[in-house]
């Protein structure tokens, strides 16, 4: 895994922000992994971006917190992040990847409404991170595949962003493109 120190720094900052319940900072920290996720396209790095983004949502929203098993789930989630930090500090990448997998199992073990809530948070986090990777210049299909979502979800979400509005994306003048279209359909 490349740039292990960068990941470790992000995880430590996440832990700090967690104590202050600073979900806005945690959200932005998850974006800082996206450069690396877009380059490496390593499933574990992508999962980590999703785990951190989802954490910001778990802190932000109040609705889950009255659910049975919430306290246990949340403390296990926090411990999971701590274990990831320890694994990276010891340069134990195998353990780090094991902890990423443990996070998935944590959610799998849930049941009832809480499971539905958390799965929904994770699904939305996947789409959010996919949109960020698409913004980075990776194609829509490639991005959807990396994140394990459908193009239907991504196209809808990406449409709300400004990806088409940046000047560099205007590759030929619109009059010329319309002329091409008129020529095709004459």
């Amino acid at each position, binding site marked *: 895994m*490349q740039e292990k120190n960068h990941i470790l720094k992000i995880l430590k900052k996440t832990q700090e922000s967690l104590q202050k319940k600073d979900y806005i900072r945690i959200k932005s920290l998850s974006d800082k992994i996206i450069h690396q996720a877009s380059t490496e396209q390593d499933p574990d790095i992508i999962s980590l971006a999703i785990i951190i983004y989802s954490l910001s949502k778990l802190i932000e929203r109040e609705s889950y917190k009255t659910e049975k098993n919430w306290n246990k789930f949340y403390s296990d989630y926090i411990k999971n992040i701590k274990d990831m930090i320890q694994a990276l500090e010891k340069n134990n990448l195998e353990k780090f990847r094991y902890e990423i997998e443990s996070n998935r199992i944590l959610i799998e073990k849930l049941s009832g409404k809480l499971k539905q809530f958390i799965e929904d948070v994770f699904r939305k986090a996947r789409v959010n991170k996919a949109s960020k990777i698409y913004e980075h210049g990776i194609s*829509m*299909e490639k991005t959807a595949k990396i994140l394990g979502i459908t193009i239907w979800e991504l*196209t809808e979400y990406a449409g709300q962003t400004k990806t088409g509005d940046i000047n560099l*994306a205007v590759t030929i003048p619109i009059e010329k493109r319309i002329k091409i279209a008129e020529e095709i359909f004459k």
Partner: protein
Amino acid sequence: MTNQIILDSGPLINLSMNCLLNILPKMKQKLNIEFLITKEVKYEIIDHPSKINRFKLGALRLKYLFDKKIINHAKLNNQEINQLRETRNRITQIANTTFKTRNKHLHILDKGESAALALSIILKEKTKKNIPIIIDERTTRMLCENPENLRELLSKKFHTTIKANTSNYNEFKDFKIIRSTELAYIAYKKGFINSKDPEILEAILYGLKFKGCSISEEEIKEIIKL
């Protein structure tokens, strides 16, 4: 004479989400257009979403068009199918070794987008015509039309210098690309849109933009003025 056009998955999903699929049968019938898709696109627009409740309706609408042969697979013999697969893999490989960060090539395209480009190449060899492709997503279009802009965009987003193997640019320079917005504009001009509302064109263009067509507001404003 029939004009062939290749559709990527994005524009079909977009038209489905905006309830604009009815322009395709009209265009096929009145303008003698044959809309073609690859097997990768069929998987993305019909086979896979048919199993997801949230997207099932949209997928079924597209399946109806496929069953009615409004959108088709290209008629290729076995040799051409093999050639298509090889060309698709070659394009994917070239696209994914065109841009490089400090130490790693950026994998920017997947099989589906490459297959649409490959089909255009195969059909060009067969018909001696440059078969256009309708693509809404930004990366493939930029790679074909202005790869230097794409390199610059990648550099900005990754906050690092991106090196390009510029000899690869030639592989992508000859494709003819339009988006769902230009398709809708033509449908509007030809009277295939069932609305007399003076703002309908603007509404359609924004509808397509907000469901994933990579078009700027400035471009939309210019189209409306035309």
